[in-house]
C-alpha cells in the first residue's frame, strides 16, 4: 500500500503546463513516450560532452595560467588528436541518428483502420470539432465549437487560459485519426501530453494518428500565430472509457434526433 501510494503520488500525471515547469509533461501516448526516450538518449551525450569539455577547459586554465606557464607553446599540428576529434563526434552523431530516425519513421506510420475520425478546424479564435462517423437522421454530423473559458468565468481549480467550454471527448486505448484544417488563417493543433502538434492550414487537410493510453484530461494551446487572440484558443482533450464515450456520443446526438 505504501509502495502504491509512493508510486501514485510521485507519478500523479502532469497533463497541463505548470508554473516553473522544467521537463516534459507526462506522456499519454506511445509517440510522446518515444519523444521523451529520445530526448533522454540525446541528453546522455550532451552531459558526456559538457562534462568532458568543462574538464579540459578547467585543466587547461589550471596548467597554462600565465604565472605557471610563462612561455606559451606554439603547437600547429597534432595528427592523432585531429583524427580522434573527428571520429568521436561522428560516432556520437550516428548513435543519436539511429533512435531519432526510428522514432521519426514510426511517427509517420498511418494507422490503416482507426476506430474514430475527428476533424479539428481552426478559426479565429476558437476550434470546431466534427465527429462525422455518427450522422443523425438529418445527416448533420456531431459538431461543436470549443471556446476558451474567460478568466472571470473560471471555477475554483480550473486552469487559467487553458479551460474550454466544450472538450474533445475521445475513448482511451483506441486508435484515433485527427484531421486538422483551418477555416481562415494558419493555426496549429498542439497537445504536449499526447505528443501532437499539427498545423491547421486553410485549404489543406493534415492527418495525425494517436492512441491515448490512459484516461485523463490533456491540455494544449494553439501553436501558430493567428492574430490578436492566438493565446486564447486552447485545446482540451478528455479521454474516457469506451462506455463513457458511447454515452457521451448518445447524449450529444439525442437533441439532434429529437429535432428531426
Amino acid at each position, binding site marked *: 500500500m505504501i509502495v502504491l501510494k509512493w508510486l501514485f503520488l510521485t507519478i500523479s500525471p502532469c497533463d497541463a503546463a505548470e508554473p516553473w515547469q522544467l521537463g516534459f509533461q507526462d506522456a499519454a501516448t506511445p509517440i510522446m*513516450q518515444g519523444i521523451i526516450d529520445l530526448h533522454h538518449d540525446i541528453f*546522455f551525450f550532451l*552531459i558526456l560532452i559538457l562534462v*568532458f569539455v568543462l574538464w579540459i577547459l578547467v585543466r587547461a586554465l589550471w596548467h597554462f595560467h600565465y604565472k605557471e606557464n610563462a*612561455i606559451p607553446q606554439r603547437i600547429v*599540428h597534432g595528427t592523432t588528436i585531429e583524427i580522434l576529434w573527428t571520429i568521436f563526434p561522428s560516432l556520437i552523431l550516428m548513435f543519436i541518428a539511429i533512435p531519432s530516425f526510428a522514432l521519426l519513421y514510426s511517427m509517420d506510420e498511418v494507422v490503416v483502420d482507426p476506430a474514430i475520425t475527428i476533424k479539428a478546424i481552426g478559426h479565429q479564435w476558437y476550434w470546431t470539432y466534427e465527429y462525422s462517423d455518427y450522422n443523425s437522421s438529418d445527416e448533420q454530423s456531431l459538431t461543436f465549437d470549443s471556446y476558451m473559458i474567460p478568466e472571470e468565468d473560471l471555477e475554483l481549480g480550473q486552469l487559467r487560459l487553458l479551460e474550454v467550454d466544450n472538450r474533445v471527448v475521445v475513448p482511451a486505448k483506441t486508435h484515433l485519426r485527427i484531421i486538422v484544417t483551418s477555416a481562415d488563417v494558419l493555426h496549429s493543433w498542439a497537445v504536449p501530453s499526447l505528443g501532437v502538434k499539427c498545423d491547421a492550414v486553410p485549404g489543406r487537410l493534415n492527418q495525425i494518428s494517436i492512441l491515448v*493510453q490512459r484516461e485523463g484530461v490533456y491540455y494544449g494551446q494553439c501553436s501558430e500565430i493567428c492574430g490578436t487572440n492566438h493565446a486564447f484558443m486552447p485545446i482540451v482533450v478528455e479521454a474516457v472509457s469506451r462506455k463513457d464515450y458511447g454515452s457521451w456520443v448518445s447524449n450529444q446526438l439525442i437533441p439532434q434526433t429529437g429535432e428531426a
Partner: protein
Amino acid sequence: MAGHKVGHATLKGPSVVKELVIGLALGLAAGGLWKMHHWNEQRKTRAFYDLLERGEISVVHPEE
C-alpha cells in the same frame, strides 16, 4: 612534435592523454548517472501502467 607532453623550460608539464582519459571517464560517469535516472523513470512509468492495467490504481476520481 610531442603531443603527449607539453614541455616547459623547468617543469614536467601535463600529460594530454591523461587529461583526455580523465575527462572521458568523468563524462561517462556523469552520463551514467543520467542513464540511471532515465531507467528509473522508465521503470516507474512501466510500473504505473502495469498497476493501471491490473486495476490496482485508477486515474478516474470515484463518483460520490
